[in-house]
């Protein structure tokens, strides 16, 4: 994999202390769409600041809907979501949330640098400041040499990394990822997972990661939440009993296989 750059000097903007993710409290959230489709049926979650939580569930059960509600892009029909900043960081951050979609969704008319800098540009950060921040975060995802390229000139995996860089450029305290690496090949996905874990260690934000791959969920996350079939309810919510250090070798260990096995059983039963 592309080696991660060593952490460069802190950006000009005031950075919060690392390890200060926000806490997410989802309280009895229901969502019924106009037209009657019920997507969420009283979802209850309390996400520890700075943790990495995977969300899995049957296709179409309401995972994206939940992420959108947490991001403020959709509204709960009843119940609510509370984002609790860590002590001392409070108001300083205007855009503490970032969202990564299944596809990279870059702006094809912008260079890699300008794509990564977009969130800062929209919140009015000066050009020199946002470009410095974008360069730094692009180096972190291993794209330091590609800042002048255009999305059409990149591979799918590289585009996904630009998308990740764009999400990280605001130093979000909460990173919402909706099946982000589903569209890339297996090998690339493994590398991206690796890189994401490393970035999470380094930056310490809270991560909510939706995926269809149970082994990806088990390898990445500290805790996995399993949802029922639509309308989604939480059927299992538990920390994994795996070492904090995730290596490629872990994927071959019996303990890992056992966790994946348990998850897949819960998923099968939970829907029924």
């Amino acid at each position: 994999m592309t080696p991660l750059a060593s952490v460069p000097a802190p950006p000009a903007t005031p950075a919060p202390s690392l390890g200060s993710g926000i806490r997410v409290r989802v309280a009895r959230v229901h969502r019924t769409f106009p037209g009657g489709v019920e997507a969420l049926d009283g979802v209850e979650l309390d996400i520890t600041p700075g943790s990495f939580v995977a969300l899995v569930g049957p296709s179409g059960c309401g995972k994206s809907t939940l992420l959108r509600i947490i991001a403020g892009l959709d509204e709960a029909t009843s119940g609510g979501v509370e984002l609790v900043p860590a002590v001392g960081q409070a108001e300083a951050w205007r855009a503490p949330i970032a969202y990564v979609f299944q596809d990279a969704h870059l702006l094809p008319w912008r260079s890699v640098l300008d794509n990564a800098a977009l969130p800062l540009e929209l919140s009015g950060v000066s050009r020199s400041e946002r470009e410095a921040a974008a360069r730094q975060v692009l180096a972190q995802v291993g794209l330091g040499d590609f800042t002048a390229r255009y999305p059409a000139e990149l591979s799918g995996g590289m585009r996904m990394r630009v998308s990740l860089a764009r999400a990280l450029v605001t130093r979000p305290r909460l990173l919402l990822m909706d099946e982000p690496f589903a569209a890339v090949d297996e090998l690339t996905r493994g590398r991206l997972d690796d890189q994401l874990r490393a970035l999470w260690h380094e930056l310490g934000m809270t991560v909510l990661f939706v995926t269809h791959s149970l082994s990806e969920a088990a390898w990445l996350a500290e805790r996995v939440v399993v949802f029922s079939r639509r309308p989604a309810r939480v059927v299992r919510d538990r920390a994994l009993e795996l070492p904090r250090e995730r290596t490629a070798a872990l994927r071959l260990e019996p303990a890992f296989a056992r966790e994946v096995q348990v998850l897949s059983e819960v998923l099968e039963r939970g829907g029924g």
Partner: protein
Amino acid sequence: MVRGLLLRSFPPLVALCALLALWEVLVRAFGVRAFLLPPPSAVFATGVRDAGQLASSAWVTAEAALIGFGLSAVAGVLGAVVLASSRLLERALYPYTIFLQTVPIVAVAPLLVLWFGPGQRAVAASAFIVSVFPVIANTLSGLRSVEPALRDLFRLYGARRLATLLKLELPGALPHIFTGLRIASGLAVIGAIVGEFVAGFSEGTAGLGILVLAAYRQLRTDLMFAAVLCASGLGIVLFGVVSLAGARLLRRWHPSAS
């Protein structure tokens, strides 16, 4: 690149030469009178002899067509932005923009003379009316085709309405806008010629439309042909320039990257 172009333009060129040769032979063989259908050689000779007249007429028409086209581009894009700003506005006004497409320009042209007086302004107005609709329609569909995920992204970062328009919707609509402009470029020349038929009389050099009319009155069919060829040549050049500009602008990102 150049070789590819030569290879690709070879078949149509051969077809053209064959057609012209056939035309020449048939006209001579059956002794068709020149005012009904002049042989290509006569049209060519006229084109060379009256090159000065044709060129200055073409320039007059081109100017009016360009003014009309420019107005279409600006008003069409702005109009579409206004329509796209609210569903209500679009539903209220869009049906009437279709009126622009269906208006019989020949019938309206006298009105343009009344409003603008004979001459370039009326001719340009005619070019504008004929060419503005495709710009509105295509820009509108481009503005509407922005991916919902990107809208979400802009919302998430608190982008203002104007920033969303300038940084997301308009650039995203550019391929559609250029489709509209390409169609409009050909139509603007047609609109200018039609406009000249009715409103082109004024002091100074006559445009191609007037030249066609004058040649018709004198039964100089060879000159008519030459003028018509110039008119379509004008349309092709404008179309080519717009296409080229679009291709240059979109070159780096057209291999649709999502």
